[in-house]
């Protein structure tokens, strides 16, 4: 069990993470979701002390993360990031073996673990063990990155937008794989994403962050049925069925007169993309252009109405 207890991080007096408390159960996936700059990465990095909290505490199975050294703590916590971060000068096997080697495992035990993980991630050990990262595809690199994070059977696996760099099809497969592997190993995972759909799909529980605060923490169903704030409504407003619906309409069908601030979108942009741009950039309306001339604007309200009709 991971207990995050009133943890805050201030940068120059401004809270990147503001008194966040939450409890994560063992053998579950918790997804932290929120817009850019909402403090997701900072929250995650405070757990393995890549960022030192300004105040508050994290306890893993009852023990404060400050009761051990940073390096010991990190070797007990898996860490996988966007862009995998594999060591380019290490083979796949050596990359996966990094933490077990630091922990002083015997070489037979390490070799067995490497092969076990490669098989688990559908990478034929004989074929991939001795390759260098430059000889793998994007999806394979990402899988090796996650395998490396799991190598020492960590108490907890932290993942920061692990699928961010993958194209949608590989991404969907990677999510399915992660679920399967998490269930097989019984791992506890905390994963950061800004994609609400990914959060709904993967999370046993979802934590929604807004401007450094944890605004809602619950199961995906709770989040959709009882969104705690307007912000959560916006975040989940378009998810799933409605989102798929929205992707069918171009914004040109919903243009209205008026102006809007910021970068404009093309008339053939889908409502779904326009919605995510609104949420991502925190705007209520976007200017719409066609062939370089301004058509008008599309508003967040109009998009939400269209999504609600279904």
């Amino acid at each position, binding site marked *: 069990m991971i207990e995050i207890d009133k943890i805050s991080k201030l940068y120059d007096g401004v809270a990147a993470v503001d008194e966040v408390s939450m409890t994560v159960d063992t053998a579950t996936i918790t997804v932290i979701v929120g817009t850019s700059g909402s403090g997701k990465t900072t929250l995650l990095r405070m757990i393995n002390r890549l960022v030192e909290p300004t105040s508050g505490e994290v306890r893993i199975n009852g023990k404060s993360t400050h009761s051990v050294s940073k390096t010991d*703590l*990190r070797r007990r916590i898996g860490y996988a990031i966007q862009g995998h971060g*594999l060591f380019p000068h290490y083979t796949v096997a050596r990359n996966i073996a990094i933490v077990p080697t630091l922990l002083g495992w015997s070489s037979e035990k390490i070799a067995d673990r490497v092969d076990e993980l490669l098989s688990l991630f559908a990478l034929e050990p004989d074929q991939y063990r001795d390759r260098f990262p430059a000889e793998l595809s994007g999806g394979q690199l990402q899988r090796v990155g996650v395998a490396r994070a799991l190598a020492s059977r960590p108490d907890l696996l932290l993942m920061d937008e692990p699928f961010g760099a993958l194209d949608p099809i590989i991404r969907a497969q990677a999510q399915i794989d992660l679920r399967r592997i998490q269930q097989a190993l019984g791992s506890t995972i905390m994963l950061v994403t800004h994609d609400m759909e990914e959060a709904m799909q993967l999370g046993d529980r979802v934590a929604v962050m807004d401007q450094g605060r944890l605004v809602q923490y619950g199961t995906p169903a709770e989040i959709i049925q009882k969104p705690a704030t307007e912000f959560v409504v916006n975040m989940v407003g378009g998810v799933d069925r409605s989102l798929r619906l929205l992707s069918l309409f171009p914004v040109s069908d919903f243009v209205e007169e008026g102006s809007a601030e910021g970068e404009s979108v093309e008339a053939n942009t889908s409502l779904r993309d326009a919605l995510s741009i609104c949420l991502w950039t925190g705007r209520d309306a976007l200017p719409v252009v066609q062939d370089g001339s301004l058509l008008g604007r599309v508003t967040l309200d109009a998009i939400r109405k269209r999504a609600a009709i279904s």
Partner: protein
Amino acid sequence: MKKNVIKWSTIVRVLLVVLLISLVVMPTWFSWAFKPFAPENGPIIYERASLLSLSLSHLGLVALASIAATLVAVSLAILVTRPSGSAFLPLSRTITNMGQTFPPVAVLALAVPALGFGTGPTLVALFLYGLLPIFENAITGFSTLPPATMEAARGLGLSRWQRLIRVEIPLALPVILTGVRLSVVIALGTATIGSTVAAKTLGEVIIAGLLTNNTAYVLQGGLIVGLFAVLIYDALVQLEALLLAKYSISND
């Protein structure tokens, strides 16, 4: 096609090595070639000291100075690329740049009163001259490491020292080696000037040629130094290519 190219370069390399060795060990074989450049009835082949011992001492000086310059420049680069040392980056750049703008002859002239004639001042000059290219390249190497890899190294629980030894130095090595290569080639040429303060180098042959108007000497000395430079440069290029291929860094 590609195979042919490789074969060709290997053949050229072997020929150059053979030529160099025979020039150094059996200089008399080449009397016929240098004769047209020697003065009437004058000596053709330099015989006041064996070319072999001059070559060895020349290479030894260069190796010693380059090793020292590499150790100092790389250590400095490591220090100033740590968060705690970044304040010293401009200062250390200025110092190494100064080392480079000083003409070697001036370094020799200044060093002789302090260190006397011979090997000492030459070593100092070569060392100072070697610092800058290695330092600059090492800085580049250590400050352009892939950020995701460094983040992962920290997140996986490698200590500072482990990150330096296992990740940063290996990844920066090809770039550092480029600096070492430049510096070694400069040193091979600059070492000839050491003979003006009585260091034992191949410069002795060239200077003797200049003093006695014997172009044959100048050519012999120049040719040997040139061949060493070309072959050593080439060997270091091969080494870098080998490292890069091994790490397969080309991907990102």
